[in-house]
């Protein structure tokens, strides 16, 4: 068994209404300590109102080799961006 504590990914909601955002990672033996540690490491300067901790091992990530088929095709589809609509002047700045 490894003597290292497992790695946790930390997500913080900075204020009500916003979504949780990944801020970094840390080590902790279990979820409860991961929460306490996240509080101590990542919310020292009033950064958050809510914390999620997720074991890094359960995160499934896309692999760099898939980059071509995953992401390149969308680069040439400018019609998916809503930039062709004219905004009526009454709307002002959105």
């Amino acid at each position, binding site marked *: 068994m490894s003597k290292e504590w497992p790695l946790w990914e930390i997500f913080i909601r900075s204020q009500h209404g916003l979504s949780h955002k990944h801020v970094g990672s*840390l*080590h902790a033996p279990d979820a409860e*300590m991961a929460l306490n540690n996240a509080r101590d490491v990542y919310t020292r300067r009033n950064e958050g109102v809510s914390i999620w901790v997720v074991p890094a091992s359960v995160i499934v990530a896309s692999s760099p080799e898939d980059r071509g088929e995953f992401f390149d095709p969308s680069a040439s589809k400018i019609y998916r961006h809503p930039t062709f609509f004219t905004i009526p002047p009454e709307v002002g700045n959105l």
Partner: protein
Amino acid sequence: MMDTEKFNWCLRAGDNTLVLSQRLSEWCGKGPALEEDMALTNIALDLLGQSTLWLSYAAKIEGLDRDEAGLAFLRDTHEFHNVLLVEQPNGDYGYTLVRQLYFDVWHTLWLKSLLNSSDTHIAQIAEKSLKEVSYHLRRSSDLVIRLGDGSDESHTRMQRSVDDLWMYSGECFIDDALDKVIADRQVAPLPSSLKEEWFATIQGIFSKATLTMPSKDAWMQQGGKQGRHTEHLGYLLAEMQFLQRAYPSASW
């Protein structure tokens, strides 16, 4: 005329947090894990902030030309009024955590009772501090339970820390003449009135931690509140006060 009783009582309050803060900050950069290092130094800073509140109130009561920094950095050992517990050396991590637990349980009970102080400024300091200290207690009790109920090695170390520091745990609950006057004025509770709840809380935590609580009737060290300290405080102050002593009035 200066309220000497309240001044001295505020020094006790501010010196407890100041000395413990200094002790905890000795762990800075040496914690057993980055996360623990951050947590301990956060707590040290919380306590330092509380000291600032207590000592600036003391300075205001005193009404002389020294401020909270003057009180912190230019008094000598016999003028410090913290309990002996907080000046004890860090030892291993078990010592640091058990010292913290003994203090945090008392600190929480004490601050809660100060919410009803006849002095509204003291009640306000207590209210602000209590949020911070509730987290300190959450953390120290959690870690004491984990390490007490951990491996054979961690259990042995924790039980040793519990036993060795026990004789310093009782001073917080011994009433002296000043405590009685302050209690009569309803500024703060009698220290002894917090004792049973402290034992009950510690017993609850130790049961979960599979640690044995030493005897309630054990002989207890005392003297810190009256300015009689263990040898450790002098060394601590020498380090803490060096800059102000070497470069008087130096500031940021």
